[in-house]
């Protein structure tokens, strides 16, 4: 079908134009109806309305549809709900999620896990939805904002009569003053209502708050920046998320960085009964968790297994829940703590079981123990250490965690009466582990001759509370905030102001006035009615309504 796209006013319009870009005369099928006009995007042609679409156009058309955008929003909404039914895998810091869902939630948990809903928000389909929403944001906006900008940039003052009388807000009457006088009076009144008025004899165009039309597009730009910033976290080095465990008084390296972090002191305070209402007396309610932390930068011997690293203090901060330590893009957050007593060091003695002779004792630290010890005539060499000893599935010893919950030390002992290459000895400092793992049987080749043991509690020191800190680097954050800020600005522009236009013309003493707004017709009618009242025409604002959809 060939469209004749030239309007009677002489303007050549693009194919798909609904209202002539110049005079506003309705074109196409809409021409003879008397219904209020479809004013969306001022009736301009959009790229998505091309007549012979190729495959690129088809993709463009798909994503430029608001209907598709709404579908995408609704599908994402429903998809998100699935992820809230059971806890997501990212809420577990340790352990195997497969052992959680089935055993705790039965067949439903198992199905949930198998279908991948335990990782809903990292799943391919959810990411795809977000990318599609992003694409839709870009294409919908471009498809509309450019033609709309063009249409609003060059507006004609004298619009086609049927354009005016087919607006949603319309007023017509016979005037008893000359048209130009009336138009001039209205110009004055509308200016006082902060309209920008353009007058051409007895025709007039008054407009205000055009900027609010750009609100939705600015909002969309903000959302796109936000989404891109979130994607940017996958750039190497932009994002780090580590957890460190620091017993009181210790200094530990932060993996993948040159920093070391010290927990000088960890404090937990609970509310006293005096500070709590009577109903809560006796409850343990935390008031404060605080890690007195010192951040060091390593300047030499970093990651050297033999030499002590050289550390230089760079920052000192009391980390509490709402106040992380921050240094050059690196943040350390109070994440958790553990104040149950943990072994820090033991001082075992080497005893000859046959004679009862005590050869002496040595200091064995749980964290960073020395590798060589000399006790009397014996030499002990530490070969390996397990913080939480267990026998793995392959039958070899393994450690379940890095906390000294069930520590074990594997020594080679050399000395008088022992084999030349030394003999093995597995030592469990805690009595309960010693029995659980049958220390004496494991060491049976030597256990009737020599034994490591702690004589009394004096030989045991406990660590202070352990703090768990979350170490983050997130270089994309400023862009996230910029995106959110732009989006917010767009929302405010779009929702708290609205674009209002009034056209009027006088033909042979008959006034025709039409008005259009993108939102808030109530306010639009009020504007027209009060301007008319000031020039001596009383109308009920509601009576200006010409029907049709908003």
């Amino acid at each position, binding site marked *: 079908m060939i469209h004749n796209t030239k309007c009677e006013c002489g303007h050549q319009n693009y194919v798909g134009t609904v209202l002539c870009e110049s005079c506003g005369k309705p074109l196409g099928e809409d021409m003879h109806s008397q219904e209020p006009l479809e004013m969306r995007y001022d009736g301009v042609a959009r790229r998505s309305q091309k007549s012979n679409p190729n495959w690129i156009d088809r993709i463009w058309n798909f994503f430029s549809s608001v209907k598709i955008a709404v579908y995408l929003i609704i599908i994402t909404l429903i998809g998100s709900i699935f992820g809230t039914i059971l806890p997501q895998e990212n809420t*577990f810091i340790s352990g195997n999620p497969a052992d959680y869902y089935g055993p*705790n939630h039965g067949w439903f948990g198992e199905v949930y896990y198998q279908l991948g809903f335990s990782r809903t928000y990292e799943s391919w389909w959810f990411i795809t939805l977000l990318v599609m929403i992003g694409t839709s944001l870009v294409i919908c906006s471009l498809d509309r904002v450019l033609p709309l900008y063009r249409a609003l940039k060059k507006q004609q003052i004298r619009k086609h009569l049927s354009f005016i009388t087919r607006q949603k807000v319309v007023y017509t009457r016979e005037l008893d003053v000359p048209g130009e006088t009336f138009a001039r009076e209205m110009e004055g009144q509308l200016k006082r209502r902060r309209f920008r008025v353009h007058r051409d004899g007895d025709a007039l165009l008054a407009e205000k708050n055009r900027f609010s039309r750009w609100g939705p597009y600015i909002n969309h730009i903000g959302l796109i920046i936000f989404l891109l910033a979130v994607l940017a976290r996958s750039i190497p080095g932009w994002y780090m998320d580590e957890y460190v465990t620091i017993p009181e008084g210790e200094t530990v390296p932060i993996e993948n960085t040159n920093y070391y972090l010290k927990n000088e002191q960890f404090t937990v305070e609970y509310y006293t009964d005096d500070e709590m209402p009577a109903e809560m007396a006796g409850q343990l309610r*935390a*008031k404060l*968790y605080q890690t007195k932390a010192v951040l060091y930068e390593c300047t030499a011997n970093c990651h050297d297994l033999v030499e002590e690293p050289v550390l230089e203090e760079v920052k000192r901060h009391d980390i509490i829940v*709402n106040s992380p330590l921050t240094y050059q893009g690196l943040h350390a957050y109070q994440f958790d703590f553990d104040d149950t007593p943990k072994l820090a060091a033991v001082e075992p003695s080497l005893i000859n079981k046959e004679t009862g002779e005590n050869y002496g004792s040595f200091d064995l630290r749980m964290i960073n123990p020395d590798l060589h010890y000399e006790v009397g005539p014996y030499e002990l060499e530490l070969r390996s250490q397990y913080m939480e000893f267990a026998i793995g599935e392959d039958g070899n010893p393994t450690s379940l965690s890095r906390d000294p919950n069930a520590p074990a030390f594997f020594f080679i002992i050399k000395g008088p009466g022992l084999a030349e290459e030394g003999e093995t000895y597995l030592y469990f400092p805690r009595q309960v582990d010693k029995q659980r793992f049958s220390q004496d049987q494991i060491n049976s080749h030597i256990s009737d001759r020599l034994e490591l043991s702690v004589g009394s509690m004096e030989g045991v020191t406990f660590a202070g509370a352990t703090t768990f800190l979350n170490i983050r680097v997130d270089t994309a954050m400023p862009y996230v905030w910029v995106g959110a800020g732009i989006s917010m600005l767009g929302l405010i522009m779009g929702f708290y102001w609205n674009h209002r236009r009034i056209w009027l013309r006088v033909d042979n003493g008959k006034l025709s006035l039409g008005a259009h707004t993108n939102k808030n017709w109530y306010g639009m009618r009020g504007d027209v009615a009060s301007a008319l009242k000031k020039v001596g025409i009383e109308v009920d604002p509601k009576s200006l309504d010409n029907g049709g959809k908003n």
Partner: protein
Amino acid sequence: MNWVEFSSDAFIAAFFLYCFGFLFYVIAVAGKKWSNRDPELHAKRWSRIAFVVSALGLAAHLTFFFTRWFGSGQIPTSNMYEFMTFLGMAIMIAFVIVNAIYRKPVLGMFALPLVVLIVAYASVFPQEVQPLVPALNSIWLKIHVTTAALGEAFFAVAFASGLMYLLRVVDFKGKSKKARRAQRWVEFTLYVIVVIIAFIATVFIFRGMGYQASFTQELVNIDARGVETTTVENVDYSMPPIFKPYNSEVVEMDSFLGLNKPLLETPGWMDGVNAGRKLNTIAWSILMGSLLYGLLRLALRKPLGAIIHPLMDGIDPEDLDEITYRAIAIGFPIFTLGALIFAMIWANIAWSRFWGWDPKEVWALITWLFYSAYLHLRLSRGWQGQPSAWLAVIGFVIVMFTLIGVNLVIAGLHSYAGVS
């Protein structure tokens, strides 16, 4: 008398003023048909009285808020009682703003009972001032919670006018399939409101009777390492147990109407915190709500919707439609700012990430997505009238689920705002 005690008195005053405000709005609207009076004059006069009384209620409510803040030294938005009372207050503020724009006081006939309901619901929760846990000790508690609640308050006003619109336009005499479906859903919405009223009433009735039952429950938990732990917990009920906790034994139980042992056991797959007690409360609410609804139907001999519908005569449905939409349009940017952006800023400070897909966060996002879909449908697809009003009603259901339902059925990081 200290400040916190004084604030409780102000709260009770606010509650009763709201009740009277509601009553006067009903007189303003329903009394138009009474004999020997000019309907317009009557409506104008009584709406003004109703508005003044409601505004006094808001003033008392604000007094409660600030004296409690002053007395306790922390902003009263830190537990469920304080948050719900704040939400009620925010709805009043939103109502006053929307009323100032549209001057349609009849909106009060629906906004006021909503506020009364929410304020009454708040009173179900423990009311003492609870000292802040470290996570809440931040300036963002003030900023995030208040803005989010204000945004939601506008959605609540949209719900009130949306429901009004439906009661106004749905054809309650219609026999067509479409009319019947609309009637059924409006009636269902009203039924749900009756159930909520019954829930609040039931809580206070059993509380007034001092009812108590307690159980010991054996809980088996398997952590992500596959380690099984068994704990025994005490569970206290304040309503007679229709459902006792799963795997539990009665320790002691008051007898109620001859009920001296639990009727049923909570199924094992409901394994959230206090699942048994919550299920029992829901069972009681539905039971009492259905009873109340049945009595109302018997007394009125008509569906509730058909009773309210004639009261709406003379209210311009287009105005209601526009108010619904406008309230959402005002609330949406505030909600975005408070419930998403401020929430992200605080989460980034307190929890080290601005977004962690915590259930509460996800539901705030779901609310946001829902209202963005609404706005796109309304502005670009021309959804107006009934579809738009239904979306406003559903939207507020999602808001309430985010605020209460998530805490009730899904535990997450926001659990300190939990329901007890």
